[in-house]
């Protein structure tokens, strides 16, 4: 059954569509940690739903806090003309206790707005439906 999240955002135009998410290591890493009786690190952060991003990204803060390690490289266009090679990491991303993407590939990014620690890109949005209601200052995400 589909899960729907409605975010009422009085400053929707100014701040963009944001929501709170919980980020943890990806499911295979969590299983490994559990088998080794290790504590599972987690962070609750503010994320910006960014339809301009083809892939999801997290801040350096999240990479450090979760002690993420690279699993690959990708080419990325940022503000520079030539694509850069960046490391790729794997996380799990939860909107609530029942709605969790257990393996999400992410990039690390320097985010200029320090309130935001995650950009939710089109790779995640591919799993659901995003509704942006400007007049109601409301965003709905359904998975």
């Amino acid at each position: 059954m589909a899960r729907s999240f409605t975010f009422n955002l009085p400053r929707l135009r100014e701040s963009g569509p944001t929501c709170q998410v919980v980020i943890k290591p990806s499911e295979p890493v969590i299983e490994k940690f559990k088998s080794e009786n290790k504590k599972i690190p987690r962070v609750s952060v503010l994320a910006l739903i960014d339809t301009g991003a083809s892939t999801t990204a997290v801040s350096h803060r999240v990479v450090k806090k979760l002690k993420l390690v690279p699993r690959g490289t990708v080419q990325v266009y940022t503000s520079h003309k030539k694509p850069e090679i960046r490391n790729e990491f794997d996380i799990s991303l939860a909107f609530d206790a029942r709605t969790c993407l257990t393996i999400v590939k992410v990039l690390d990014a320097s985010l200029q707005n320090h309130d935001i620690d995650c950009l939710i890109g089109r790779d995640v949005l591919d799993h659901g439906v995003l509704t942006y209601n400007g007049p109601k200052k409301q965003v709905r995400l359904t998975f």
Partner: protein
Amino acid sequence: MRLRSTKPYPVTALLEKEYKYYLCHLDKFCEEHLHHFVLIKKDKVVGFYGSYAEALKAGVNGFGNVPFFIKEVEREEAVHSF
């Protein structure tokens, strides 16, 4: 508000060695394993898998939570933007 990544300062060292190895062997990989996911550790191919999840599980189970390289074998590498 517009968010942009600024100049990169990777918090982790780039997996350059593995990436170079991947590029050097890409033609051969494409012939035999197009659209499969290759798992590389240092300069050794560990295996090819049907999905990223399978490759990730194999890597974590085999090496632990350490850096290793997974890539979908493609002739043209996708370039992301954000």
